[in-house]
């Protein structure tokens, strides 16, 4: 316990700057789902229109798949992974083991974002938090409206870091990395990655 406290993981592992891929914007806010008023809702959107985007995913192989897992799989099946332009993440509530009502809530969240993005089947969902509780749809829905209507989207470092914070649960630091790479002909491209998790971790995704 004392060893744990002597490690300042935030200082060690959270970057102070980053390089980010072109054509993405992110936004986040505290919707009120988390009890402590911390960031708990985020949206990533693709704003590049020069080509159709591609999407891929792997999901838990747990038999009890949460509503956002089932929903996102459906979106990828229907769209064949083409034209997915948004990801909504929320923390505080996993929307898991919530049955038909949970699926309806997931669909409503995605529909709301699809309207702003302007395309059907263009939004993936991720939720994390307590199992067996329904999403507080009034807070989530109000939060999404606020992000889009007040155009909270940006591509600066602070916005990406806040997005990483918005999916944290028991995490002690947000997990954000980014890097530039080169193709064989020297063309540069960029990867950015965000993850969350601290417990209930032994994934076997497919």
């Amino acid at each position: 316990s004392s060893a744990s406290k002597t490690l300042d993981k935030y200082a060690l592992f959270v970057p102070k700057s980053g390089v980010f891929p072109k054509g993405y914007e992110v936004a986040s806010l505290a919707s009120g789902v988390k009890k402590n008023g911390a960031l708990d809702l985020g949206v990533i959107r693709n704003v590049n229109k020069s080509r159709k985007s591609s999407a891929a995913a792997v999901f838990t192989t747990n038999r009890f798949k949460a509503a956002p897992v089932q929903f996102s799989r459906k979106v990828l099946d229907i769209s064949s992974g083409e034209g997915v332009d948004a990801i909504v993440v929320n923390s505080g509530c996993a929307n898991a083991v919530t049955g038909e009502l949970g699926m309806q809530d997931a669909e409503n969240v995605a529909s709301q974002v699809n309207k702003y993005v302007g395309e059907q089947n263009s939004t993936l969902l991720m939720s994390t938090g307590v199992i067996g509780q329904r999403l507080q749809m009034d807070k989530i829905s109000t939060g999404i409206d606020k992000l889009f209507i007040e155009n909270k989207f940006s591509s600066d470092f602070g916005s990406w870091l806040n997005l990483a914070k918005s999916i944290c649960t028991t995490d002690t630091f947000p997990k954000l990395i980014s890097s530039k790479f080169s193709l064989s002909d020297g063309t540069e491209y960029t990867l950015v990655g965000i993850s969350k998790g601290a417990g209930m971790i032994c994934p076997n995704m497919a």
Partner: protein
Amino acid sequence: TLLGFVLTDLPINSSALQSMLTGAVTRSFNCISVDGDMSTNDTICMLANGAIDTPVIDESSPDFQKVSSQVTEFAKNLAQLVVRDGEGATKFVTVNVKNSAEFKDARLIAESISNSMLVKSALYGQDANWGRILCAIGYSKLENCKSLDESKINVSFIATDGSSPQELKLIANGVPQLDIDESRASEILALSDLEVLVDLGTGTEECQFWTCDLSHEYVTINGDYRS
């Protein structure tokens, strides 16, 4: 729960992207463990929006393997951050199983060690308990013993701080080293980054798994998560 996403500005068709992501996750996020529990929500997704002006990458593109390798290494870095933040964790542990006849066997053995509560407790307590590591190898769910020959197995702790000797052998060719240098073991186990090396000596395949120790704090955090 594990959640994550990787975004790129490359143009990659969806089939190639799925292949790339699945390959990367097999050697990154699917090779981590904090507590052995699998969530109802685990998801990793990847988007490629094609904002970079370059030909679309598919499975037959010359750069497909190169980008796949880069995405895999990137995913490993991202996955390792989750382990470093394991609830109550004080140590980041790489379990490296090498020279296995089959990759899947190396993975099963690495996973078995990584999920052992007793191995993880010993690592927290800085106890060079090689018996628990060997025990976890022995009950790993191998289909057969092609990769595991008791007379060829070597188990070591590896120092990660550049100090010497870097390797502390616990088991050599199946024989426990009963005169372990306990003071050197204590030095290595006091590090916040550790490596457990298992050399099966039965082939050329290898798998790395990343785990953490198990501390009192884990129970404190999870005793009242819902309420």
